[in-house]
């Protein structure tokens, strides 16, 4: 089947999509956007978190056909509104605080943090923990991720 999705503001078409393919597979393998990660493919780890029509979801749990005609925003689109060669403040804060080690969880956490700060520009630690509880990280123990969220929030206010 043919699937048409507006990805990071640009209309994209994927042909010959098998009905069992997920949105994550189409993004990664058909549209050249491997930033969203495939760590569990059952919605437990949050590494594939993307916006679907402005609402965060796990791209692995969305059938590609369900995304047809809709709008998807991924980690690759986060810095679109930053200046040329610049990062979004959330991305910049993750790099600066050491919240990135292996980095496999990072794209999902960035999208989830982006979403959190859009809803709540000044979350406290408990609110951050609750908002990011769907994103597993195996390297950092989360402390520097919390630091990164606070730093990004300060800079975005």
């Amino acid at each position, binding site marked *: 089947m043919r699937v048409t999705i507006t990805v990071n503001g640009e209309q994209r078409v994927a042909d010959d999509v098998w009905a069992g393919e997920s949105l994550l597979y189409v993004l990664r393998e058909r549209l050249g956007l491997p930033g969203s990660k495939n760590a569990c493919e059952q919605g437990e780890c949050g590494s594939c978190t993307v916006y679907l029509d402005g609402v965060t979801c796990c791209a692995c749990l969305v059938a590609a056909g369900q995304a047809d005609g809709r709008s998807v925003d991924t980690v690759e689109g986060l810095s679109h509104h930053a200046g040329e060669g610049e990062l979004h403040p959330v991305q910049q804060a993750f790099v600066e605080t050491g919240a990135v080690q292996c980095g496999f969880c990072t794209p999902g956490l960035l999208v989830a943090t982006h979403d959190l700060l859009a809803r709540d520009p000044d979350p406290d630690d408990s609110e951050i923990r609750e908002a990011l509880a769907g994103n597993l990280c195996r390297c950092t123990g*989360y402390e520097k991720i919390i630091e990164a969220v606070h730093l990004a929030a300060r800079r975005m206010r």
Partner: protein
Amino acid sequence: MTGTTETTGTTRVGAPGGVGESPLRPDGILKVTGEFAYGSDLWMDDMLWGVTLRSPHPSARILKVDITEALRTAGVFAVLTHDDVPGQKHFGLEHQDQPVLAVDVVRYQGEPVALVAADHPETARQAAKKIVVDYEVLEPVVDARKALLPDAPQLHPHGNLVRHVRIRTGDPHPSAEVVVSGDYEVGMQDQAFLGPESGLAVPDGTGGVDLYVATQWLHVDQRQVCAALGLGPDRVRLRLAGVGGAFGGREDLSMHVHGCLLALHTGKPVKMVYNREESFFGHVHRHPASMHYEYGADRDGRLVYARATIHLDGGAYASSTPAVVGNAGTMGLGPYEIPNIHVDCYGAYTNNPPCGAMRGFGSVQTAFAVEAIMDKLAEAVGLDPVEIRVRNGFHEGSTAPTGQVIDSAAPVAELVQRLRAMPLPPDDGGELDLRRLPGGVANTTHGEGVRRGVGYAVAYKNVAFSEGFDDYSTARVRLAVVGHEPVVTVHTAAAEVGQGLVTVEQQICRTELEVERVVVAPKDTQVGSAGSSSASRQTYVTGGAVRAACQSVRRTVLARAAQRLGVDAATLRLAGDAVVDDLGAVAVTLADLLGTDEVEDTVEWRHRPTYPIDPETGQGNAHVQYAFAAHRAVVDVDVELGLVKVVELACTQDVGKAVNPSAVVGQIQGGSTQGMGLALMEEIQIVAGRITNPSFTDYLIPTILDTPPMPIEVLEYADPHAPYGLRGVGEAPTISSGPAVAAAIRAATGLDLRRVPIRPEDVTGTR
């Protein structure tokens, strides 16, 4: 020297971003923009997808394999079995006992039996289902102790014992005024790195292959892949793909040979990516342990003797079990001075999933037993948990159970005393916040039935490879002037697995060569081996190699300048884009001196040698260096429901020298969290040799809600034998955090909990 997590006020040597600072990691921007290419992100035109057919049985004979229907499937390019392995049919890190593809028997559930390559991953999966394997199912051996009994079925030609380590010192029949003992068990933990096993094998058109793979040690992989393919190292080139975490789980081969076989067979690039379920079957796990410990002491709590019997379940193949047994045996009594010792540590083959390397490597399991016994002893003699550790802890000059004298800092007493001095978190007496209570937002308690407990534990870990292993690394460093600016290129094969080694390589070059711009070359087998990104060793060993290569390049440059200027090289040094004299004045610019020349050297570097242990007594200078860490855990336990909330997990660790203070803290926080996970929730559950929870739905790792604040004090007592005085960092905190959490739960509940992970039913007594 002590007490800080950030380096301040130190005199800078070398260019900005050198040793002791925390510059940004060079791969950070790619990782936050989604452009960093992990193994699973690789892609080529005309690429095929490979999948693995695995045994559903933990023990069976293979009577027949029929691939006819699978081969007929449209879109399938190859179906391979052991018949298609052209070289050695078995591989392994220490013993070559594991089939590339099963030959006549399978010894664990998940053992690879056949491979399929197809133009779509789903086509390959469907075709694999059409492979017909006739099995004669056998009764699996599932208990490590029973596997060593004389009447157990023998799983390998040389029997079921992988290794037995004995430690014997002092009086063989000691007695003591106070004796404590207990039996302890540790469940099977998974590394649960987030990036599943993955890689891309690309045939070169002349019978060779390039393999891009996520791994921990390119050269040990290359050696094994070459043997299986029957090709020389010039025909099998490995390059590190982006690695999504490792923690020991990528020391053994996964898709390496399989991908290459399919690529060479089809003449097309082949990508293999395990999904999470397959990942649980596709790598080794932490050895489950059952341990009997008995410690004797005098009435003042000074240890007189220790007896321990440790059984580690190695599963179906040896992997790194011999070395894990070595660690658990030689270091399994904790960082305590004990004059009379009797230890037996066994690793056994069973039909359970193969076990091998995981962060902490044998020391994690024994620490749960040792630290519980030390708390028991403290109670028996009326001391508190800190005082018993202060009284018995190693210090510089102590003798380890192997007879090795510890010849650098061993600040056990200071580590626990500093923890005790750290402020305790306040009781949550104020506003009700479910997120801070056991059970969290599940709203299972409003504080009723909740008891607080505090527990301490201390750990030590050998850094780098032990027991006489030739443990070296290779570094190639090049200095050139590009557009009037000096640029250093550093090339090693050391795997960046997330820990930040690429940053450390840059920092060392900046410090040694005074050049700010340092390029880290891609990690591949075009340079000599760096050894494994394991055993907390890369900053020490590859760091040592990079430093030595830089020093060699510096000597060459200064000698050349000295010759040109007609002065003594000893009066010159490097400074940014120039060679300067002893007054700091520019003697010659690097652009003038080098022109278009490059100065390059490649150095193989070794830490001081280690030695095998005596097979009868376990005596010998087996280890290079020890790392020390301690934890204090504060927990709230809902004793009615058995739910635990870790309120705070404080750590003190001696790192010798914090080469990158931010990364050091990151290692401690991440390691502490993994240790806590084993104490509370992480266990691969096995029933009759079968994994019942191979998913992130059922195998739980700590989320951000489960993980507490982690205050840290980093000590820097230089090890005079190590580069910059540094100590390996990554593993020690994984060892002491779990035992501290277990101790805190015992303190909260009054229960003698002897098994981890501690399940709710262990707390409520309803099991």
